[in-house]
């Protein structure tokens, strides 16, 4: 499901009862039983990790860990709560690379559309 392309969600906080707690700042909140199931990261999820690592690697340092954390913290509670872990990482990377002018939002969209079309026609 494609996320909304509107302005980032302005609700920064988890609830009105704790103003000042960012939606990512989870320590001490109520929660359910921890599900112990472990799933292996899919190849595209590993690719996301590697691209992030490569961009931030020593000698390159085009991005840094704290910038990626910060963009995760800015995407809005709706996206943060809906997306999976690696999806959040990719969304954060997208925002950061656009912010830095390293890629353009439109060219990314066009490339995604072309890729989706080609995969549909040719298969993976």
């Amino acid at each position, binding site marked *: 499901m494609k996320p909304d392309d509107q302005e980032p969600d302005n609700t920064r906080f988890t609830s009105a009862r704790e103003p*000042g707690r960012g939606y990512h700042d989870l320590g001490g909140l109520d929660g359910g039983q921890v599900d112990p199931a472990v799933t292996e990261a899919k190849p595209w999820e590993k690719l996301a990790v590697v691209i992030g690592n490569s961009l931030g690697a020593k000698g390159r340092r085009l991005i840094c860990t704290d910038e990626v954390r910060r963009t995760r913290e800015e995407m809005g509670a709706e996206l943060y709560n809906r997306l999976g872990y690696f999806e959040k990482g990719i969304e954060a990377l997208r925002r950061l690379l656009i912010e830095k002018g390293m890629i353009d939002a439109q060219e990314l969209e066009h490339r995604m559309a072309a890729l989706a079309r080609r995969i549909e026609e040719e298969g993976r």
Partner: protein
Amino acid sequence: MSEPFAPGDRVRVARVHPPGHRRTPFYIRGKEGIIERVCGEFANPEELGYGFDGLPKKRLYRVRFRQKDVWPDYAGDPGDTVDVDIYEHWLRSANTKARK
């Protein structure tokens, strides 16, 4: 910034909620603990997050908190603790006696 802390010093975490990229979690703000060790000096993540170089480096401390001081309803053992790595600018002295 203030005088460096030493292991054993009582400190209190600032009870402030500034917007933006912070690495001091909400649950520990305003709580009192003890400096367990000096971790060293690191570039400030609050500035690294926005593309600055985060210099000059800030002192990082491991602060140990008794769980019963953090959670009013803590049901575990009185000896249970939570250790959090906190930067110097979030910490205030909590010594009841005047410092030497």
